[in-house]
């Protein structure tokens, strides 16, 4: 079994709600559940379009519930981190009083034996309501909504027009045998590559296949690559402060063309050169982490090679070849 590298990806979405979803979410802040009239029926929660025909619906909203009848349900014995409750509960389709279509939400019924088609349920409202479907914590058995003590149902100062949704997933990716060997070689300050037996092209790191010939590369194709080269291209990244961004100052990523072989390493770190001084032609050498500072894990970025910290100028005169920029990868 391959070693796994864990990484967590987060997507902080902000969604505009539009007139129908916005009115529904604004209603929730006031402990009101709205439906919309559609072909003589009431859809709750409301949609912008007739689900049968795709025709746009007029904003003819009508209050429904808050109590309703369970028409279908399932039991969740082990909730996930995304679920509304942290103890066993039901997901149910609830037809709210006055509505014709069911509403999917959680029911906090205590145990599975309490659940039945036809049971009556009402919402448990959260105290702090932001205008999301989770303003209803869940539904509970009975006719009466659960309302936090002292709760007011005042309208928000401004109608709700946006919704935030922070999606987050944790991934565990296997580290291939090729990447493990490249990583191990980097601890010995060796830059490992692989050579395609068909076309002879070389690739840095543990790529594992030649993309030109679509053949698999294994240990028998390993080669040691030179550790000197030339900056063949570069970009200066001015960081935008999106969530999770840790860089604050402009930084460079350079392409390094290795001496004597047909290999270009992309998006490398260039050390000890101010961003304004970076230009194609700078002669560089690989710089390796000391044992103390060595990165023990490799990330998901292709060509990230364990102990390779970056590239440092050698002080040699610039390479002035006119074709430096021609080879990209």
């Amino acid at each position, binding site marked *: 079994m391959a070693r796994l590298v864990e990484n967590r990806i987060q997507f902080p979405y902000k969604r505009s709600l539009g007139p129908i979803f916005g009115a529904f979410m604004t209603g929730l802040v006031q402990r009101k559940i709205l439906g919309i009239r559609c072909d003589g029926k009431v859809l709750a929660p409301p949609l912008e379009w007739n689900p049968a025909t795709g025709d746009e619906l007029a904003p003819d909203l009508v209050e429904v519930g808050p109590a309703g009848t369970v028409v279908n349900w399932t039991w969740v014995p082990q909730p996930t981190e995304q679920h509304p409750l942290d103890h066993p509960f039901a997901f149910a389709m609830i037809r709210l009083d006055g509505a014709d279509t069911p509403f*999917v939400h959680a029911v906090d019924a205590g145990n*599975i034996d309490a659940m039945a088609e036809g049971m009556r349920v009402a919402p448990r409202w959260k105290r702090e309501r932001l205008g999301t479907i989770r303003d209803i914590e869940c539904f509970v058995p009975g006719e009466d909504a659960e309302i936090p003590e002292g709760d007011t149902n005042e309208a928000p100062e401004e109608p709700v027009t946006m919704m935030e*949704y922070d999606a987050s*997933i944790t991934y*565990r990716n*296997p580290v291939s045998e090729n990447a493990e060997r490249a990583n191990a070689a980097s601890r010995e300050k060796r830059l490992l590559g692989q050579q395609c037996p068909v076309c002879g092209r070389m690739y840095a790191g543990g790529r594992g296949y030649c993309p030109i010939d*679509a053949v698999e590369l294994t240990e028998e194709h390993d080669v040691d690559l030179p550790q000197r080269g030339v900056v063949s291209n570069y970009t200066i990244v001015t960081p935008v402060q999106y969530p999770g961004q840790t860089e604050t100052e402009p930084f460079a990523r350079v392409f390094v063309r290795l001496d004597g072989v047909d290999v270009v390493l992309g998006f490398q770190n260039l050390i000890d050169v101010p961003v304004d001084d970076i230009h194609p032609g700078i002669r560089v050498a690989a710089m390796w982490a000391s044992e103390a500072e060595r990165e023990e894990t490799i990330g*998901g970025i292709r060509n990230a090679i364990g102990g390779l910290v970056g590239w440092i100028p050698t002080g040699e005169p610039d390479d002035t070849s006119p074709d430096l920029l021609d080879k990209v990868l």
Partner: protein
Amino acid sequence: MRNDTDIAIVASATTPVVRHTGDTETTLLLHAITSALEPVGLTRADVDFTCAGSCDYISGATFSFVSNLDAIGAWPPKRDSHVEMDGAWALYEAWLRLHHGDIEIAVVTGSGRSSTADPSLIYPMEMDPYYLAPLGVDPVSFAALQARALIEAGKVTERQMAEVAARSRKDAVGNPSAQVTGDFDVDELLEEDYVRAPLRRHDLPPISDGACAVVLATAQRAEQLVERPAWITGLEHRSECHNPALRDLTDSPSTRLAAEAAGLRDGPVEVAELQAAFTHEEPLLREVLGLDDSVAVNPSGGALAANPIMATGLVRIAEAARQVAAGRQRTLAHATSGPCLQQNLVCILEGDS
């Protein structure tokens, strides 16, 4: 001899399907494509068009399909496309592309490594972002709601569902790409706890890693390459509204419409490979497609035996084509996408008589 404009499946290959693979998705595809091309004497240089089905959410990398292209052979440059859907829909696009008439060979792939993350946390994010995703309603919960609707309507029982699981696992015994196989006692299966009532573990598909590649060819090339091409005589898909709460879960009108449009009624089928990832979906699909007991359903073991998401539907088409190559006259493949059979594809395959 068929018409020059006809298109056939001439080869396919599926990797071993397992709970965890140490291989990257690219390596899985590298093996699947090579294994599909080699037996019919083709190389990547012969391929005019490729279309891949995969999902960034599953692999956890944006534009993950770009690195998957390394498995296809990037040189000389070729026409390529990708769908963020099961490979069955990639096959639909390749079939359309071959109908243009200017190229002859297409390779279609489907690939997924579900072991990379927890499917119950990934798939809620594909749901309606306003009303469903924030509740984390997972696919198994939605499947359970459909199962209960079918049970309440008298269309299936929990025992029949367990029988589907036992039959599928038994049929899968000879399938080298199956993951869950063996002899299981229905009474013992029914004693297990519910995962999501009324669904037990055996009513759910396994979590799988795997990839599939299928080779399509236009009529003349197909007849040169293999003795018995599987001709695609009908290929259609239809979709329904997204939110399962707004649908009649005891029916699948999109499957019915796709089957009618694909010409299912033009003759009998001997084998049907249905993408029924949950046991209760099989009797519903059988009913909607009008398949009686004379039709062998999922002789491969189906999605209950191996479920490499994004390839599972394409594997159904590959299996139905394999049945034609082995001598069957007319077979059906079905693929699905979205919660509770939201979108459905039907493919009819025929052999020369």
